[in-house]
Structures are given as structure tokens and as C-alpha cells.
């Protein structure tokens, strides 16, 4: 059981990284970015390329991978989101699906289908709380928590964070107070894409990168955002961990002492959570209705 909880901590940290940025983008802009998983993989693959093909050191490769992720997010925002959201806020759903297909094709062409690992080779595990974790997994969990903590400090202790929260709470009122909403949205979108790229790097270090991972990553992040509540950063992060724990428990536990659920259903947990929450509590656990004058 303790190993299941530790596994959930690893998977939850990865999902929280991607869902945290997404929660704010969805909260501020109200749009769905369906290319998020591909953006995460792009960051991971670029880090792998810098590290394995060009022989750069790990910190330099990670930094360059994050820069590539930020650049891709900027491009996505300027070409596939911003020109269309002015017509209708649903249009970016379709444009980012198209961008996701193009990115999928490019990733397959450039990096092919074989698994890619940023840190190849086996590591000896460390025993913690009755379970086992490798040093790189512990580092990744701590790095994720630190990154999310920095994000939270920016959100709650800086003027920039107050502007973000103002736009989440009431966009028109915030704009009437002089907040440059477009610039703020662009910055948030880039931050979200960079966090997603960090998620891709996480996968490349902890497991293997494969092109088929993109869509499940997107779905899992949206499940966390929907369950957490629109615009709720902490809700999304918490739900990312809860979903990861549910996934581990579902297939790792023998139910009623006799029944096991096939491992293939693990990826369906997020889907059924989306369906359940949207039907029963569409505004999520921590979501609150928009304030009006």
C-alpha cells in the first residue's frame, strides 16, 4: 500500500505540474488547449535531444528544453489561440486540436516511435516509508512542489498575482481598472506551456518519452482542472494527486479480497472522473460562481 501511495505521489506530481498552469489559463481565458500534451512532450523530447544527441549537461539540457517549451507556447498563443478567441472562445478548441495533430506528426517524424529516456540506465532505489523511490524521483517530486510553491507565492504575494486573480474573478472589472488583459493572458499561456514542458522533462527523466503519451496527459490535466473547479490552482493541484492515487488504488488493490481490475482501466479513471464531476458538480470541488455587481 505504501508503494502505491509513493507511486501516486510521483504520478500526481507530474499531473499537478501540467494541471496547475492549465487551471489558471482556463480560469483567465476560459479556453481549452487541446495541444497541451503535445507541448509537454515537445519540451521533453527537446531536452532529450540536447542531452543525448548533442551531449549537453543535464541542467543545460533542462534549461534549453524549458526555453523551447516557452517558445512553443508563445507560438501556439500567437498563431493558434489569440487570432481565433476574438471570434469565439470555442474556436481555439478546434485550432489547438489541429495544432496537436501537426505536433504529433512532427514529433513522430523527428523523434520516431521508439521510447526516449533522458537519463538512460537503472538507478538503485532508496527505501522510504516502507516503499521504494529512486533519487531522481525524489528530486522530481521536490522540484515539482518547489515550482508550484513559487507559482503560489507569485499568485498571492505579488502585484502581478493580484492582477491575475482579478482577471480570473471578473475580467471586465479588471480591465476597467487598467489591467492589460491581453499581455497577462499571453504571459499566463507561456507559463502554462513552460510548466507542461517541465512535465514532459519529468516523464523523460522518470520513465520514457513516447509520442502516444500526449493525449492521455491532456485528458488527465483537464480532469484535474474540472474536478478542482474553474480557475482554482490549488483545486487542480489537489485533484491531480487524488486522481493519481485513485488510478493506483484502482488497479493495485484486490477489491473485496477477490477481484482485481485490469491495468488497462487505469487510464480511464480520469475520464470517468470528468464525466462524474460534469454531471454532478459542474463547477468542481473548489469552484465558485462568478461575482457580479
Amino acid at each position, binding site marked *: 500500500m505504501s508503494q502505491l501511495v509513493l507511486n501516486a505521489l510521483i504520478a500526481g506530481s507530474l499531473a499537478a505540474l501540467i494541471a496547475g498552469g492549465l487551471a489558471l489559463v482556463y480560469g483567465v481565458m476560459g479556453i481549452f488547449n487541446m495541444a497541451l500534451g503535445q507541448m509537454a512532450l515537445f519540451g521533453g523530447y527537446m531536452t532529450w535531444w540536447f542531452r543525448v544527441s548533442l551531449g549537453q549537461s543535464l541542467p543545460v539540457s533542462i534549461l534549453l528544453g524549458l526555453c523551447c517549451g516557452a517558445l512553443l507556447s508563445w507560438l501556439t498563443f500567437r498563431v493558434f489561440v489569440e487570432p481565433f478567441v476574438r471570434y469565439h472562445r*470555442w474556436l481555439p478548441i478546434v485550432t489547438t486540436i489541429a495544432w496537436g495533430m*501537426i505536433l504529433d506528426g512532427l514529433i513522430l517524424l523527428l523523434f520516431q516511435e521508439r521510447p526516449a529516456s533522458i537519463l538512460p540506465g537503472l538507478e538503485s532505489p532508496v527505501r522510504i516509508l516502507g516503499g521504494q523511490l529512486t533519487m531522481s524521483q525524489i528530486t522530481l517530486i521536490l522540484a515539482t512542489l518547489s515550482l508550484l510553491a513559487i507559482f503560489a507565492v507569485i499568485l498571492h504575494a505579488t502585484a502581478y498575482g493580484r492582477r491575475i486573480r482579478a482577471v480570473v474573478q471578473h475580467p471586465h472589472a479588471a480591465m476597467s481598472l487598467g489591467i492589460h488583459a491581453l499581455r497577462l493572458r499571453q504571459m499566463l499561456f507561456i507559463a502554462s506551456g513552460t510548466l507542461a514542458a517541465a512535465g514532459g522533462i519529468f516523464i523523460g527523466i522518470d520513465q520514457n518519452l513516447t509520442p502516444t503519451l500526449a493525449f492521455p496527459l491532456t*485528458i488527465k490535466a483537464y480532469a484535474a482542472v474540472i474536478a478542482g473547479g474553474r480557475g482554482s490552482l490549488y483545486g487542480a493541484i489537489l485533484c491531480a494527486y487524488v486522481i493519481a492515487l485513485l488510478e493506483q488504488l484502482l488497479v493495485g488493490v484486490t477489491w473485496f479480497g477477490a477481484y482485481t481490475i485490469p491495468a*488497462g482501466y487505469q487510464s480511464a479513471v480520469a475520464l470517468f472522473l470528468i*464525466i462524474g464531476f460534469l454531471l454532478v458538480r459542474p463547477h468542481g470541488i473548489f469552484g465558485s460562481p462568478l461575482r457580479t455587481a
Partner: protein
Amino acid sequence: MNYLWHILAVVMIQMPSALGYNVVFGKGKILHFGPIATSLASAYLIFLLLKATGSWGIAVAAGCVGAALLSVLFAWISQRLEPDGFGVLSLAVHLGIVSIVLNWSSVTRGALGVPQIPSLPLITSLPRVALLATGVAMAWGGLLFWLHRRAFGRQLAALAEHEWHASALGVNRFRMQCAAFLLAGFGALLSNLQFAPYIHLLHPSDYGFPALINLVLYVIAGGPGNILGVALATVLLVTLHTTLPLLQWPAGIIGPVRLILFGTILFVVIWLRAPRIFPQRRSV
């Protein structure tokens, strides 16, 4: 010549599904990403029952009931949720059903699919398949065109443009949307009924996310709500999809190139049609 019959058959088999989806997504402007869920559920219902009972009548009747129930369920859910929430939910339903089909292998045979699906009665040769598919597609297109020109088409368009105003004028939202979802469901059923017997295999990979993207692409490329436009886009894009392997590129190249090509086409048509896909409400 056989290859031309094959292309005609594949294009025309896809047509009812594309035209049906056009009613919901194109004409009704409902952000519905679950048409393949209806296809998948009804296809498995039909062909598993056919295998078990050997009776086309029972299998098709069960498939009709399944498609109708799922369509009404989608229509009911679409009343309860915000449009984008419904889009995500319908996509989740689709992927959830795919997951069940892949994992419930004692019934569905999982990723292996269901082989040896028999041909439709009397439709044993390729020209017959193509001609039947063409006849069905034309009849289905004609029915939808007739509905499009009647009160149904006008009321659905009114709901798409301004739901409250249309409701205030006496348009019953649930009834209209239910009819639209049912048309989409039966369109999918007509395509399924012909596709699996044509290739003699029912495989979950034919009902994945790419199949949904293709439908979205046909509707947007043809012009949302435009029956002739969607029919033409289906002909051109399915032909392109089917003839791409003729380039004889390696398998590792053709798949990614297809993704990039169709992604680019989808983006370009959205870019060209951006103001008309989900139009702004008209105001005086």
C-alpha cells in the same frame, strides 16, 4: 477499376455519418465530440449480437435502440451543461467507451477486434457494396436536405443563433436537439452497418480520436450546416485519405505526414472560416 469501386465505397460509407454529424455540430452549433461514441457502441452491439444470434433483424434493431438511447442521453446532458463542458464530457464518454471496449476482452476481444463479420445479405461483390453505399448516402442526404428546408432546419438554426430568443418564440429546445442528436446517431449507424461488413472486421482503432477529427474536418471544410459542402468535403478528404498510401512512402513516414497534412488542412479551413464556424449573435 476495382480500386475506383473501393474508393467510391469508402467515400459513400462515410457520408451518412458525416452528414449526420453536420446536423449537430454544423447546423445546431452544438459542441458535440461524442459521435464516434455512438458509432462504437452501436457497432459493437450490432455485430456482437449478429455473431451470437445470427439474425440481422435482431442485431440491427438492437443497434437502432442503442444508438437512439445514447443520442437521447447526449441530448439530455447537453441541456444541463455549458457548451464547452459538454464538449469535454462527450469526448470523455467517447474515450471511456473505447477504454471499455479495449479492456472488456472476454466480450469484445479487446484490441484484436471482431473478425469474420459477414457481408450484408445479397451485397457480396465490390460494385454492389459501392452502389448500395451510394444509394444510402444519396437517400440520407436527400432526407437531411428536405429536413434542412423545413421548419426543423429553421428552428435548429434559430436555436444555434440565439437559444433564449428561439425558446421565447416557442421552439422546444430539448425536442429539437434530441432530433438533431438522433439524426447524427442514425447517420453513424448507417455508416457502421456498411463499414464492418465491407472490411469483414470490427476494430476499435477505427473508432478512435482520429475518426472524430476526420468528422470535424469534413464539417468545417465543407461549411458548417451546408449539406452539399460537407458532402463534397467528405468526397475530397476521404479520397485524399484513401489514396495517400499510393505514394508508397515507408510506413513510418506516411502516418506522420497524414497527421501533418490533415492538421494543416483543418487549421487552414478554420482560419478561412473563423467568423462563420461559431458566428456572433446578430443584434439590431
